[in-house]
């Protein structure tokens, strides 16, 4: 890792990156090992700030993601504690796949700036993204999803978002109407936006989709009159609203949302009932959902819900996502 902070100018950063790679290769040659392998499938930009309480977990997730999605990672930190001007650190994240001789390395660049200097970030980032490959922005700045955001920071962030092939946010814990309004604005500008609150629904949605595959009567679908969605949070989280919207897109019934005690956070239970049968999914543990179809019961794993797995799923869907878009369109009609 470069021990000194560099001025965040694209040429300086790129030069430092080249130096890091050369010294890595030299190190390996001295040890007589095969040279390092460099891999890159995208530029992954993580925008974070002082408010990001889980920034440590996020940076671990970023490292883990490099295995399946080798990238040039650029961490943009907005911090009141940052010094004057933009500064950058450059280093390589290396690991040896289990049992293999060759080391695999990905590059990471960290840029810190005070909120009022965010206007300068865009041009720097533009100079250091990997050419010809997708750019994904994982926007962890909650302020980005609020209407009250500081103007200069907002404009600065906008210049970064405008580079993105896809922007990934997490609306958990953010006032939902504001967050959805901001996402709607982005989408109206033709941007592709993913929300981890939607990704969290995958185990639930997949289980429901499968239940209808088997259901003697897929035709029974039109007889479903009751759709109930329960959550454990104080107010309905985005995941509950998305679930309701998604279900209403497939069933001619209105979903009722309500708060309930039980395993959470977030979604706790989904029930669908017709005169003849019922499908119920209830979270029964940190990693488990119980599925009841009529009187048959099955335990379903919620595999796929860790931060790493959520991001991994989103990074495999970089293009338009029609199912999410349809649910997002509908969500405005849902009453929590």
């Amino acid at each position, binding site marked *: 890792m470069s021990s000194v902070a560099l001025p965040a100018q694209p040429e300086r950063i790129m030069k430092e990156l080249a130096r890091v790679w050369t010294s890595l290769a030299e190190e390996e040659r001295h040890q007589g090992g095969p040279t390092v392998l460099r891999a890159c499938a995208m530029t992954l930009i993580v925008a974070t700030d002082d408010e990001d309480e889980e920034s440590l977990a996020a940076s671990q997730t970023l490292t883990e993601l490099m*295995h*399946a999605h080798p990238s040039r990672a650029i961490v943009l930190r907005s911090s009141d504690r940052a010094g004057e001007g933009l500064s950058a650190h450059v280093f390589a994240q290396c690991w040896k796949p289990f049992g293999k001789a060759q080391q695999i390395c990905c590059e990471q660049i960290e840029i810190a700036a005070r909120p009022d200097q965010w206007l300068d970030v865009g041009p720097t980032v533009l100079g250091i993204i990997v050419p010809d490959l997708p750019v994904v922005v994982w926007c962890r700045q909650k302020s980005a999803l609020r209407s009250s955001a500081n103007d200069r920071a907002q404009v600065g962030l906008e210049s970064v978002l405008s580079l993105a092939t896809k922007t990934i946010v997490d609306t958990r814990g953010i006032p939902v109407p504001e967050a959805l309004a901001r996402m709607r604005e982005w989408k109206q500008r033709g941007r592709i936006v993913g929300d981890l609150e939607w990704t969290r629904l995958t185990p639930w949605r*997949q*289980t429901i989709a499968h239940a209808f*595959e088997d259901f003697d009567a897929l035709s029974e679908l039109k007889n479903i009159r009751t759709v109930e969605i329960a959550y454990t949070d104080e107010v309905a989280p985005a995941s509950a609203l998305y679930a309701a919207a998604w279900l209403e897109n497939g069933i001619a019934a209105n979903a009722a949302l309500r708060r309930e005690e039980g395993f959470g956070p977030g979604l706790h239970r989904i029930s669908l009932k017709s005169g003849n049968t019922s499908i119920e999914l209830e979270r029964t543990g940190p990693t488990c959902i119980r599925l009841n*179809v009529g009187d048959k019961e099955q*335990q379903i*794993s919620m*595999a796929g819900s860790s931060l790493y797995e959520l991001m991994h799923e989103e990074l495999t869907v970089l293009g338009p996502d029609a199912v999410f878009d349809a649910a997002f369109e509908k969500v405005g009609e849902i009453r929590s």
Partner: protein
Amino acid sequence: MADANPFQDPLRFERRVPPCAIVIFGANGDLTKRKLLPALYRLAYERRIPQNFAMVGNSRTPMSDEDFRQKMKESVQKFIENSPFDESVWESFEQTLYYVAGDLKDTRCYQAIQKKLAEAEQQNQTGDNVLYYLSTQPSYYEIVIEQLGKHTMNRGKGWRRIVIEKPFGHDLASAHKLNQQTHEVFPEEDVYRIDHYLGKETVQNILAFRFGNGIFEPLWNRRYVNNVQITAAESIGVEGRGAYYQEAGALRDMIQNHLLQVMATVTMEPPTVFDATNVRDERAKLLRAIRVMKPEQVPLYAVAGQYGPAKIGGQQVPGFRQEEGVDPESQTDTYAAGTFFVDNWRWAGVPFYIRSGKRLPKRVTDIAIQFNAPPLAMFQQETRMGPRAPRPNLLVLRIQPEEGISLRFLSKSPGSGMRVRPVSMDFNYGSSFGERSPSAYETLLVDVMTGDPTLYTRQDMVEASWKVVQPILDVWQNQKFNFPNYDAGTWGPRESDEMLARQGHVWRTP
């Protein structure tokens, strides 16, 4: 037509198993414990097994359903790779496992299985779809298929399919006979001959590499390719399976099935559409185009080998004839190599060298495509023996253990003067970055249960590949070899190097 399921999301949901029951013959065996059950459990963990599913195991050892479930749980915990074991998912999943003890030679066994299937159907509503999986010794294949027919277990309201494990036949005649017997009971579209190599992510990646990119295909022919070398090496010996291996040998065990299929994947014409019929048609066409050797050509184009004892890493390892259960005079090939030619416009005249063996220096499977040298040798390469014309481009498709692709090309050595040296540009696939990719059995099980035979071998493919190796088997059968002819831990017999030298080539060291 039924309405479409409005909740499907193919972008995010993996394909899942439809309602069905699977009957595994040989359920107390190695393959079931090591591969099939861990694969099924993993599918359950990934929410890809429906409630309406059942698995009925059969072998002779008496066990209750409960005993069987306990045994399978232990196997899954032991053999599952890169995957967590979730107790509550297992508890649900094991409710779908049933067991019937019985001897395959006994007709009562099939009645008992029928009864168990009916019970499972009642409890789990499997839609009366049944998959039979033959994971028994090959000598039982015929008996089981015949009995399934006699008990009308090959028909029903739902579908009936059958998976047949390798080896499919012992030679061309027995493969042909087995095909005929199978077809008396199951039509070809319900017969799934498994070749787990084709289920490997890496082998499927060859298709993506060839037909997803536009820049390689124009080079993929006799004008640019000098020769192709396919290597499947194992460092281990026969590991207690000496008695079984003695009947097979490397040519039958690896080349006839896996490596000829790999060769077909590398050399087939692009299918017009990526579906089962088109992909398999192209594979079959290629296999039919491989030149069949005349008996007098066999000594020139094929080499058999058997390893003798040696010291590896300071440790004495036995020769094949010293392995347990092996005849001390055994004539079995633990190494086989062949030179094959494809008689079509694309490949005429290009030698394909295939080798496979046990107790070679390391475990590796790869395909090396050696390109022609440039028409004019403009640069010299410095070597210890002085300057010489540089070695031309080499493209290596690595299947295991480090899946990936590397391309060797020339670059200028730093410094003054125009000296060149080969450098290798390496690419490792996602799975090499530590990401879990599905096991071949997970892929192939979902394929058969959803009725997709793309990665399974068809009758004509199996027979075509037997036709290719049959003359070699015939000549070897009547020959007395002076075995052992290579030391454990080396790259095989000298004759193999000589075989390539006759064409002006050398084996590369993987």
